[in-house]
C-alpha cells in the first residue's frame, strides 16, 4: 500500500529524512514511531505529495507519488499534524465544502456520507454548531470524519488521538479496529508507544531521519527464550533453579528456558511460593529504545 525507496529530504544542510524504505502492506495497522523532530511528519507530507522529496521514490497504492496523486489520493484519507477547518462554518458545512473540493466526492451521496461519518466519530449532536465553538477533541474528531468521508482504502493518520480524553482515545481505537476489520489499511504516525502497542500489527521506528527498525509487532514481542518468575522466596527459588537464573532483581527472577509450566511445577514441588510466572516478552518501549540507541548518531538533527 505504501512503498518508498531511499526516500530522502534535505532542507539546506539538514537531512530531515535519510534513505527511508517504508513497506506498508495491505491489511496492516502500521505504527510509525519516532521522537518529535525525527522526520515523521516530513515523511507523511512526502507520502501525500505536500512536500517534494529531494531524492528517492514513493508508491502509494501501487502508483507513483506525486505523479499519480490525482488518481491515488481520493482513495486515501488523511489527518496531517492536527485537524483544520473554517471556524465560522458548522462541522457539517466544513465537511460538505471539503467533499466538494477536487475529484471523487459524489454530490448525490454527500449528505448521507456526512451523516455516516459524523455518527462514526460521535459528532452527530454538534454537527450544526460552528467549528469555532468546538473543543480540541471535537476538532480532532471532525478531522477524522473528513478523512473517512470517501471510504478510503488507506488511512494515513498523524497523531489521531491528540487532544482526546481517555474515553475518546478508546472510541477512536475501536473505530480504527472496526475500519481495519472491514479491509482498510491504516498508517498511524505517533510518539505514543502505548497507543501503537495496543493497536498496530507492524511497527516502523524513525530515528533522526533514518528508519532503524521495521518489523511485525508479534515478532518484536515474541518470547525471548526466558521465563520470568515473581516469588516471595527469591533466595530459595534461585538455589533450586541454580545455574538457570540469568538475572535477579529483588523478587523478580529471569530463568533460561521457555517451559513455564515445567519451572512452575519444579518450584511448587519444592514448596517455593510463586506470585507470577510466564514467558518473558519485551515491551515495545524496550525494543524502540534498543533500536534507537544502536543507531549511529548522525550529524544532523532538525
Amino acid at each position, binding site marked *: 500500500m505504501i512503498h518508498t525507496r531511499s526516500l530522502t529530504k534535505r532542507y539546506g544542510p539538514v537531512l530531515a529524512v535519510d534513505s527511508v524504505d517504508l513497506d506498508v502492506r495491505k491489511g496492516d495497522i502500521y505504527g510509525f514511531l519516532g521522537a518529535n523532530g525525527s522526520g515523521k511528519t516530513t515523511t507523511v*507530507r512526502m507520502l*501525500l*505529495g*505536500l*512536500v*517534494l522529496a529531494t531524492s528517492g521514490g514513493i508508491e502509494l497504492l501501487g502508483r507513483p507519488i506525486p505523479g499519480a*496523486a*490525482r488518481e491515488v*489520493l*481520493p482513495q*486515501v484519507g*488523511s489527518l*496531517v*499534524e*492536527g*485537524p*483544520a*477547518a*473554517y471556524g*465560522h*462554518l458548522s462541522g457539517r*458545512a466544513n465537511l460538505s*465544502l*471539503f467533499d*466538494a*473540493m*477536487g*475529484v471523487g466526492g459524489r454530490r448525490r451521496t454527500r449528505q448521507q456520507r456526512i451523516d455516516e461519518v459524523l455518527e462514526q466519530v460521535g459528532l452527530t449532536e454538534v454537527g450544526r454548531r460552528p467549528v469555532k465553538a468546538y473543543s480540541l477533541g471535537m476538532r480532532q474528531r471532525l478531522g477524522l470524519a*473528513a478523512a473517512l468521508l470517501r471510504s478510503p482504502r488507506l488511512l494515513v493518520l498523524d497523531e489521531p488521538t491528540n487532544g482526546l480524553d481517555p474515553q475518546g482515545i478508546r472510541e477512536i481505537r475501536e473505530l480504527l479496529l472496526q475500519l481495519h476489520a472491514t479491509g482498510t489499511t491504516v498508517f498511524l504516525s505517533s510518539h505514543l508507544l502505548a497507543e501503537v502497542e495496543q493497536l498496530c500489527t507492524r511497527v516502523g521506528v524513525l530515528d533522526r531521519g533514518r528508519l532503524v527498525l521495521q518489523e511485525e509487532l508479534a515478532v518484536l514481542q515474541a518470547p525471548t527464550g526466558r521465563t520470568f518468575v515473581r516469588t516471595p522466596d527469591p533466595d530459595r527459588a534461585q538455589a533450586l533453579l541454580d545455574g538457570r537464573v540469568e538475572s535477579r532483581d529483588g523478587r523478580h527472577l529471569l530463568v533460561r528456558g521457555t517451559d513455564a509450566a515445567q519451572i512452575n511445577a519444579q518450584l511448587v514441588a519444592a514448596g517455593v511460593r510463586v506470585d507470577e510466572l510466564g514467558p518473558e516478552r519485551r515491551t515495545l518501549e524496550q525494543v524502540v529504545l534498543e533500536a534507537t540507541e544502536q543507531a549511529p548518531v548522525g550529524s544532523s538533527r532538525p
Partner: protein
Amino acid sequence: MIVVELVKMLRRPRTWVTIGMLNALPTLVAVLLALTDLGPRPGTGPAFLSAVLTDGTLFPLAALAIVLPFLLPIAVAVFSGDAIAGEAAAGTLRYMVIRPVGRTTLLVAKLVSVIAFVLLAVLVVAATAYVMGTLLLGDQTGATTSVSGTSLSATQISGRTALSIGYVVLSMLGVAAIALFLSTVTDSSLGAALGALGVLVASSLLFTLDAAAALQPYLPTRYWLSFVDLFRDPILWRDVVRGVVLQGVYVAVFLGASWANFTTKDITS
C-alpha cells in the same frame, strides 16, 4: 473547485463587511453634497464630483472614482493576500492539496473568487451610488453632459459605465495578481496584503515625482483613473488602451510567478 471557492467567499462575513465599508464613503459624500450643495470646482477633486450636483445619475462613476485610489485596492489586497496564505495559516491548505485539489486548479479558483469579489464590490458600489445619487442629488431628465461638454444619451452612458466597470476590475486584477504572488511566498496573509499595498504606495509616490518620469509609464497605478476618458466625446482611447496592456502585463507576470512558485513549493504549514 471554483464553485467551492465562490461559496466560501460569499459565506464569509468578511466579504459583506468589506463591501459595506466600501459603500460607506461614497454614501457619506452623497449625503454631504446633498446637504451642503458644495461641490468641488470643475477640474478639481475626484472625477465627476462637480458634475453630480446637477445630475445624480453620474454619481456611480463619482463613487468609483472615490473608492478606486485607496479603499478598493486595500480591500483587493487583503482578499487576494489572504487567498493562499490564509489557508496556510488556518491549516486548511494542506487538506485541500491532499484532497487532492491540483495546485494550479487551486490557484485559478482563488483568482476567480478574487475577481468575483471585485466585480461584486464594484457593482454594489455602483448600484448603491445610483440609488443614493438619484434620491439625494436628483435625476436630471434628458441628456447627460459628457466631460467634454457635449451631451450623451442614456444608452451611451450605460454602455460607457459598463466599460469603465470592466476597466476598474482589470486595474484591480493587477493588484490581485501582486498580492496573490506574495500570498504564495509567505504564510502570513497580513504580510502579503501589506506587501502589495506597499507596491501601490510606492507607485503612487513615484507617479508624483518628476525625476521618475522615465518609470511612470510602467507604474501599476499610472492609468487607474483613465476610465474618465471613456466619458469624453469622442472617447479618448490612448490611455485606456495603455492601461489595459499594462495591467495585462502585470497580471501575466505575477500570475506566472505565483504559479511557478506555488506548484513547486513544499507545503509545510
